[in-house]
């Protein structure tokens, strides 16, 4: 059975744009390009749409962060999330059940509270919840972990497969070709310009290549002779058997380095991160991570003790030194664009795809997306985002 939106036709000899990687970034970008009239687009994937991190993430969506750069970009996305099902004519199962980032220590409270004036200034909807309000919102959570939190009542979570399918079908309707099992093997450049890509055994002529290959972005960039200073990183996540509702919003806990939500089918989905960098760079699952998740989620929701984990899987992301995505053109090679380096890529895709498509078509960036250009990684002017659930090296931060 063909996958939704995936073409059965062979690749043609030339395209206006070839997008490497049919994750949520690549497929959404193909859709946005087609909306702007660039319809001769191929999205090629070494495996199939959503085989990588797009089908393996925690599905959570918010826009209230600590940095202006992140907050502005993800708020464009969050606004798009609300109309996405109607626009794609496919229910992405986006559930605006709210999203709360929970602080436990005084330091975390201080760090999170500092964001609120920023959110006000940018017109981003958020609120501070005190202990009492948090306990009301999360009746099953351990009260001693709930010192305060940043709350967005219109954020939430969606179903990652549905989002991929929705985008893929909509893109295909506009003429975008999505090719599965079509790995990019090489990128030809001449005179500082992209000339062609080799996909499988086929040479495809194109002036524009977009690198949306997720965990493999560094290798694909190297094919064009472009350096991308990223590090591959393994994340693990689990889902329990279905339970009757005990948790309405999506929750992230800074103290526990964890994030979770309960789907409307009742499964509890959550992932945690270690303080130390996970040494694996392929998709193994580790008992260490399962134990960490069990310990932390039973700590956060004590009544989860005894709930059975039905699946546990891993995914790979490509981290930049500031954990922020790299978006826009590579200065060394005309026609080579990044849509890479994502860690929060699922929630960021609808907004970033729209803005990046405009950058590609119009040749200049919207101010919201401009700060994510690759130059910052070479000049060292990194984005300082302090409200994400990742193990940030204290010395570097």
């Amino acid at each position: 059975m063909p996958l939704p939106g995936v073409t059965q036709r062979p690749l043609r000899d030339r395209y206006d744009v070839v997008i490497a990687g049919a994750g949520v970034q690549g497929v959404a970008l193909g859709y946005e390009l087609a909306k702007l009239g660039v319809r001769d687009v191929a999205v090629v994937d070494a495996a199939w749409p959503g085989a990588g991190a797009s089908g393996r993430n925690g599905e959570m969506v918010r826009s209230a962060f600590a940095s202006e750069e992140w907050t502005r970009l993800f708020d464009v996305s969050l606004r798009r999330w609300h109309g996405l099902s109607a626009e794609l004519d496919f229910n992405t199962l986006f559930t605006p059940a709210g999203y709360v980032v929970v602080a436990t220590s005084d330091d975390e409270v201080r760090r999170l509270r500092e964001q609120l004036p920023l959110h006000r200034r940018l017109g981003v909807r958020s609120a501070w919840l005190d202990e009492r309000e948090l306990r009301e919102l999360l009746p099953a959570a351990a009260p001693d972990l709930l010192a305060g939190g940043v709350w967005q009542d219109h954020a939430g979570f969606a179903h990652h497969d549905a989002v991929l399918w929705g985008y893929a079908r909509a893109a295909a309707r506009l003429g975008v070709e999505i090719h599965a099992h079509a790995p990019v093997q090489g990128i030809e450049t001449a005179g500082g310009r992209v000339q062609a890509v080799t996909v499988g055994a086929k040479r495809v002529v194109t002036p524009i290549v977009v690198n949306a290959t997720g965990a493999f972005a560094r290798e694909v960039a190297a094919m064009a002779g472009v350096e991308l200073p990223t590090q591959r990183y393994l994340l693990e996540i689990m889902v329990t058997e279905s339970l009757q509702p005990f948790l309405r919003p999506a929750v992230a806990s800074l103290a526990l380095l964890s994030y979770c939500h309960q789907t409307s089918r009742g499964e509890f989905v959550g992932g945690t991160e270690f303080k130390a960098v996970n040494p694996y760079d392929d998709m193994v699952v580790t008992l260490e991570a399962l134990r960490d998740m069990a310990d932390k989620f039973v700590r956060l929701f004590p009544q989860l003790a005894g709930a059975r984990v039905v699946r546990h899987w891993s995914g790979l992301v490509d981290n930049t030194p500031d954990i922020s995505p790299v978006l826009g053109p590579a200065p060394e090679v005309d026609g080579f664009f990044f849509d890479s380096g994502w860690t929060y890529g699922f929630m960021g895709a609808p907004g970033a795809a729209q803005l990046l498509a405009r950058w590609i078509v119009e040749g200049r960036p919207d101010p919201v997306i401009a700060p994510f250009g690759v130059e910052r990684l070479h000049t060292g002017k990194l984005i300082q985002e302090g409200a994400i659930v990742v193990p940030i090296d204290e010395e570097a931060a």
Partner: protein
Amino acid sequence: MSELDPLGLRQADGDRSSVVAFTFEGRRLLGVEGEPIAAALHAQGVRVLGRSMKHRRPRGLHCVADACPSCAMRVNGLPGVNTCSAPLRAGDVVGRQRGVPSADHDAFGVMDGLSRFAPIGFQYRRFRRSPRLFERWERVLARLAGSGVIADERAARALAERSRWSTGAADVAVIGGGAAGLAAAVAAARAGARVLLVERRDLVGGQARVSGDAGERARVAELERLVRAEPAIELLTGATALGWYAEDVLAVAVGDGMLELRARAVVLATGAHERPLAFADNDRPGVMLGGGVERLLRAHAVRAGRRVVVATTGDHGYALAAGLVADGMQLAAVVDRRPSAGDGAQAAAATLRAAGVELHADATVAAALGRSAVTGARIAAAGGRSADVACDTIAVANGRRPARELLLQRASAGGLALHVPAAVRQAVDDPARPVVDGWWLAGGVGGTETLEAAARAGEAAGRAAAEGVA
């Protein structure tokens, strides 16, 4: 109590049995300490153990192998306990997880009739243009969804306090205590290895232990005796190996805790799962896997029902039926999809015919009749005629498939070049050869079909594993 109530029988069965009281939805019931909770309920006529999630269809005892969620119940404040394997303790408080007002008479049972309004995938089409309606619908859905309610606060706290994470090591770990695993453990110990034998049930011996063939039962009893007499073997029962992780760490759930097991060599002897058969309403309480019927009867002295129809695709269905008749159960019919019974089934078929059991060849069970319990089987002959036969149990005998979950888990990640079907084929040809470095397959998981073949494969694998670490 009911005819199925074998309490007297079980008490007479041996001194190990002791009768204890437990509570089922406010009723005080009796059972044998240590038997599966569901066996105690079944013996006393409780057939509906829960309701399915979306369609709210009644669910009953099905596999008796801890391999499906059909018997999941709330036990002592914890959700999702598979009662076909959870042992009964005095004072247990047991209840069904869904059903308003009860799982017997669930008002949401109407969902089953409404299912044509909610075909598979309907959620991606509905409400896509009306986010507000979708949000409301999701809140309704959330009330309907969910198997159990999260644990009671006290039960959760007690569980968290008593659960332990421990680590263990062995020269050779044998996973599965059926014939192959028992033979592997003995052979490995005799070759000088320190062996840990991990068995998910409280009883070793696998399916052979509850076979209708007395010779098979005696053979595994002998293997068990050898294992227990061997000081180099540590036998861990009630322990489920549930994961094969990076760096070849095995996760073993032991009681309420977890054992992180590192072994220098591992023999996987996880056996095989019974295959179900597809027919209308094959999920009704009373449709069971044949091995489950045997286990219930011979390990726990509980009859699955008063009148049984066996639905089969092979000679083993006749052996199952003849064994049940020999042990005093009433068989209504054996329904064989094949044009005629094979040579291996002729003796059993003759016995069954003499006992007045209808034998239908070239026929299938087309449907289970009844709603909250099976009341009959619709038997469809090849010519298109069909007839209803009254029964309260349909026992399915459709062969087995290797229980290869641990292999698949390991093969899917970790840069390990392991092609699972090829590994299974290799184990059939040469059980002494590891499928990957340090790992052997033996018995049903390695494709054997008879007890003797499983024991031989186990012995070869166990010896090779021990020699590998010597």
